[in-house]
C-alpha cells in the first residue's frame, strides 16, 4: 500500500475536474491565521479540506456544484465547464428564446422533467449554488425581465446548502438591483414556468446523455491519474514541488487580485446607472474600521489583503498608514482575523457610492515603536509588535 504522505500527494494532484484552485488567492493559504473556510463549510460532500497550508479538493467526492466557488470571497475556487462567461452566454441565449425570462434549474429536476421541457429555454446547472450575483446582474443589463431559479427537491438533497447559497445570492442581487433602481428580480421557484414546456415530440435526452458521459469520464480520469502518479513514483520521476510560500512584492504586500467575477459585477452595476445614495448590507462588501488607539501600526492588514482594498501609504511629510477602498473589499475578514491587537473590525454596511466610484478612507497611524538601529533591535521590536517569538534575523 502506498505510504500515507504519498496518498496525500496524490490527493493534491487529483483536483476536481470541475473546479480550479488558485492557492495563492485563498486567504487561509495566504495567512494561516485567517479563519475563512466558507468553501469547506459550503461543501456538504466534504470534498474540500485545508491541510498543510494548502486547499485540497477530493475529486471523488466533488460533484462540481460550484457552490464553493460562489462562496469563496476571493475566487480562489473557480468553476469551469461551463465557466462564468459560457454560462452567462447560455443563460442569455435561453432567456432570449423564452421571451426575456431566464430560467435556470437544478440538473436533478431537469432530468426528472425529461421530455416535458424545451431544452433551448432552460439552462441546467449541477446545483443552484453555482449561480452568483454577476450572472444575475448581467441578465438585468441584457434586459431580461425576470430570473427564475427552479429548485428540485433541494430541501431533501444532500447538498441542500446550495439552495441556501442561492437564496443568499438572490437576496444580494435583488438588494443591489433595488438600489440601482432596476425592476428585474431573481427568485427561487418550485416549478417551471409554463412557457418552457416542450412542444410535442421534443426530447431532452441530449443533455441527459452528456451528463452520463461526464460521470464516466470523471472515473476514467481519476483512474488514469492514479496510475500515472504511481508509475512516476516507481520510476522516480518526481515533479518539482510548487512554491509553498507567497513572496511579498516591492511595496511589502502580498500580490493582489481582483477576481473577474467581482469586475463583471461592478461592470454590470455601472451599466445599470447610478445607485441611490444609501447604506447597504450585503454579503459581498465590507467596511473596515481601524481603532487608532489600539492599532500598533504594523500594517499587516494591508500586507495580507487579497484584493488591495487595504493599501499602505507613506507620505513625504512622514504621515503613513492604510487607505481603505470599500469598493475593492470582498469581506474575506482576513484583516480582522490577523490583526495582532484586534484594532480592526469589518462592518457589514457600505455606502453604495463607494462601490463604483473608488471611495477611499484614510487611516493614519502612529509611528510604531520600533528601533531600526540594528537588526537585533529590529527583530526584538517586531517580536513585541507581532506578539509572538518566531521572528528571526536574516
Amino acid at each position, binding site marked *: 500500500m502506498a505510504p500515507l504522505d504519498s496518498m496525500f500527494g496524490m490527493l493534491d494532484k487529483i*483536483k*476536481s*475536474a*470541475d473546479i*480550479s484552485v*488558485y492557492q*495563492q*488567492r485563498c486567504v487561509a493559504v495566504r495567512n494561516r491565521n485567517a479563519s475563512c473556510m466558507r468553501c469547506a463549510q459550503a461543501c456538504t460532500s466534504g470534498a474540500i479540506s485545508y491541510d498543510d497550508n494548502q486547499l485540497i479538493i477530493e475529486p471523488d467526492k466533488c460533484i462540481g456544484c460550484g457552490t464553493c466557488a460562489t462562496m469563496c470571497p476571493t475566487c480562489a475556487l*473557480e468553476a*469551469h*465547464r*461551463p*465557466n462564468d*462567461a*459560457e454560462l452567462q*452566454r447560455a443563460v442569455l441565449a435561453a432567456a432570449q428564446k423564452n421571451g426575456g425570462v431566464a430560467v435556470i434549474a437544478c440538473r436533478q429536476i431537469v432530468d426528472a422533467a425529461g421530455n416535458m421541457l424545451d431544452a433551448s429555454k432552460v439552462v441546467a446547472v449541477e446545483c443552484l449554488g453555482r449561480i452568483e450575483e454577476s450572472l444575475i446582474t448581467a441578465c438585468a443589463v441584457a434586459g431580461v425581465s425576470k430570473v427564475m431559479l427552479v429548485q428540485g427537491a433541494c430541501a431533501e438533497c444532500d447538498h441542500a446548502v446550495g439552495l441556501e447559497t442561492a437564496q443568499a445570492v438572490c437576496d444580494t442581487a435583488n438588494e443591489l438591483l433595488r438600489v440601482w433602481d432596476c425592476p428585474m428580480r431573481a427568485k427561487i421557484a418550485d416549478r417551471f414556468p409554463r412557457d418552457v414546456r416542450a412542444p410535442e415530440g421534443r426530447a431532452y435526452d441530449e443533455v441527459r446523455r452528456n451528463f452520463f*458521459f*461526464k460521470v464516466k*469520464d470523471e472515473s*476514467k*480520469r481519476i483512474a*488514469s491519474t492514479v496510475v500515472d502518479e504511481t508509475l512516476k513514483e516507481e520510476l522516480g520521476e518526481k515533479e518539482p514541488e510548487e*512554491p509553498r510560500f*507567497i*513572496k511579498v*512584492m516591492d511595496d511589502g504586500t502580498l*500580490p*493582489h*487580485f*481582483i477576481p*473577474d467575477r467581482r*469586475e463583471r459585477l*461592478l*461592470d454590470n452595476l*455601472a451599466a445599470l446607472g447610478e445607485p441611490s445614495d444609501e447604506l447597504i448590507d450585503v454579503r459581498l462588501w465590507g467596511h473596515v474600521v481601524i481603532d487608532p488607539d489600539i492599532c500598533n501600526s504594523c500594517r499587516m492588514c494591508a500586507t495580507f489583503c487579497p484584493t488591495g482594498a487595504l493599501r499602505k501609504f507613506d507620505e513625504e511629510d512622514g504621515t503613513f498608514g492604510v*487607505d481603505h*477602498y470599500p*469598493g475593492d473589499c470582498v469581506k474575506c475578514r482576513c484583516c480582522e482575523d490577523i490583526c495582532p491587537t484586534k484594532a480592526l473590525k469589518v462592518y457589514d454596511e457600505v455606502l453604495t457610492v463607494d462601490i*463604483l*466610484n*473608488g471611495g*477611499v478612507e484614510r487611516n493614519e497611524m502612529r509611528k510604531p515603536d520600533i528601533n531600526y538601529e540594528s537588526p537585533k533591535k529590529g527583530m526584538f521590536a517586531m517580536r513585541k509588535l507581532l506578539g509572538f517569538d518566531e521572528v528571526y534575523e536574516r
Partner: protein
Amino acid sequence: MDTYSNITVVHGGASSGKTTFLISHVKELIDTGMAPENILVVTPSLTACRAFSLRLAQEAPEVAERVAARTAQDVCLDTIAQGGGTRTRRAMAAEWTFVLADLRSPGVGGATTRCCLGETFARWRRGDFSLPDEGPHRHVRERLEKLLAQYGLLAPQEIAPRAACESITATHAAVLVDDAQNLSRATLVALEASAAHEFVVAWNDQVSLKGFDECAGDISLQEFLEKHGSAKVVSLPAFLDAAAENPATAPADTHIKAFAHAVAHADCAAYDRLCDAGAIAFDDESVVLLKWRTPDDEPNGIAKLIRSMVDEGTALPGEIYVAVPNRTWGIAMRRALTRRWLDATMALDDEPVRGNPAKPAAAAAYLAYAKAALLADAHDVMAWRIWWGAGQPDLGTGLWRAFEEWSKSESLSLAEAIERIAQDMTAIPASLAPFAARVQEGMSFIERNSGLKGFSLTQTVFSGLADDPFDLDDVLNGTEDAAQLVTIIREASYSRTFDFDPNHVLVGSYRGVAGLSPRVVVMTGAMDGFIPSTTCFDSNGAIIEGSALDNQRAIFAAAASKARGKLVVSTFQRADQDLACKLGLRERRSRVDAGKRVSMLSRSHFIEDAGNAAPGSQSGEQYVQ
C-alpha cells in the same frame, strides 16, 4: 493554367503538418535526383522564408543552403524584371505617399481621385491594364502611370497581377508554396508558371491572414481545386479530430490548439469534446491568462516570467515569441527584457520610414532615407522628390509640378534636369529658385559624403535622429555601403524579419508569428482597443461584426495556435484615463483611484469568445513569483 499533371495541394488546419509535408517533399525530390538548385520554396513573408530555411537546415543540412526560399513578392518582382519592364521596384509606403500627393491635379477632386484609384486597383486585380475611356478617370490613370514611370516604381497593388500577365518561362523544376491561403489568385498564377514540373501548394483551410499580399483573399481552396481538377490532393487530418480520436497520444499542445480553434470560431464545443475524451487534462497549464494591474506592470512582469522560463530550461530565448500590439509595447518589452539580461530582436509590421512627411517628427526620418538613397544613387528621382518635399506642408507639390513642366519643355528627363540645375542654377526660371537651392544643398551633401560606409554612413545619414530610427540594428552588420543600406531599408519596408539568434527573444507583431513555430508564445496587450482594434467598436463600445473583426480574430487565433509548448495571454486591469484614451483602449467604466481618474479596461473580446477554452485569469504578480 491547368496544363500540369504534377500539382499537389496539401491542406489542413493549423499544426496539421503542412510545412513538415513540404520539407519532406523537398527531401523526396532531391532523393529522386532533382538538383536542390532547381527547387524553389515560396512563403508569404521573409520571416517565414528564414524559418523554413532553418527547419530545412535541421532536416537536411547538406542541401538546405542550395534550396532557394523566397517571398512570393520577390518572385513576382523577378518575373516582371525578366519580362523587360522598366518599373521593377515596389513603392514603399513612404514613396507611395509622395506619388499620391503628386497625383492631385487641378480640376479633379479628391473623391474622384480616390474613386479612380479604387477602380484601377480592381481592374488590375482582374489583369486588365488597359486605360479607361475618356474622362477624369482616364486623366488620373494616365497621371498615375506617368508618375510611377518617372520614379521607376510599381504600385504594391499591381505587382502580382502584372507578374501573372507576363509571358513567364519556368525558372525552377519544382516550386513549393507554403501558406498559400495568404496569397492572391494572381500571385499563385505567377508562381505556378515558374514551375516546370512540380507545383506543390500548402493551404490552411481554416485561417487565412491578410496583409502579405495586396490582393489576398480572392481565391478559396475550393475554387483553386476546381481550377486544378487533376491536382493530387492531400488532406491532413485536423489536429483536434486526431487528438479526440486518440486522447492517449494527444500532444501536449492540444489545449493551445483548442483555445486557438475556439477563438477562431467563437465556439468552445471542440474544446469540450477534447476534455470529455480526456485529450486535455483538467489541470493543463499550457494556456495561461494573466492579468496585471496596470500597463506599466506588464512588460516587467512578462520579462521576469521569460527570465524564469529561460533559467528553468523551459525554452531557449530564441524559442520564445513575444507578440506585441504596437510599437510602444514592443519598445517597452525590449527594454524590460534587456533589464533582465535578455537580448531581444524586434520586427514589427510598420515600415521603417513612416508617418506624415509633412510633420517635422516624421519628416526627419524621410530625409534620412532620402540622404541614404541619394548617396546610393544620385539619379534616384524619388529620393530627390522626398529630399525636396519632406517637411513642407504641401510636400512641395506646387514647385515640383512646375519643375516637371520645365524639364518637359527642355526635353530633359527629371534626372537630367536635376543634374543640369546642379551644374547651373541660372538655367531654370527664377520662380524655381528655392527648388534649385535645395538641389544644390543635396549635391553638396553627396559630394561631402560619397563613399561612406558602416558607422560613418549611419552617423551621417541618421544625424539628429534617434540611435536606430528605422529599427534596423538587428540586421545591420556595420559594414554596409549606402546602396546596401537602402536595400535593407526597402526590404524591411515589405517584410521585416528577425536575426534568428537562439539567444535572442523574438519580439514582433501578432501577425508576425505566421510562419514560425516557437515553443512559447506570449501575447501581450490582449485588450479591447488593441486586438480587436478601436475600429471594431462603435461609439457605444459595442462590437461591430464585419471583415475587420474577422481579420483580427484570424490574426489572434493564428498567433495563439503557433505556440508548441506554452501560450501566455497577458492583459491588464486598469490604466490612467488619459493614457487609456491616448492608446485607444476600451474603457468599461472609470473610477477615482489615489486621486486620479482611472479607466477599468476590458480584455480582448476574443478571449471571452473562447468560452470554456479560455483559462481562468490569474494575477500576473502571483504567477511570476
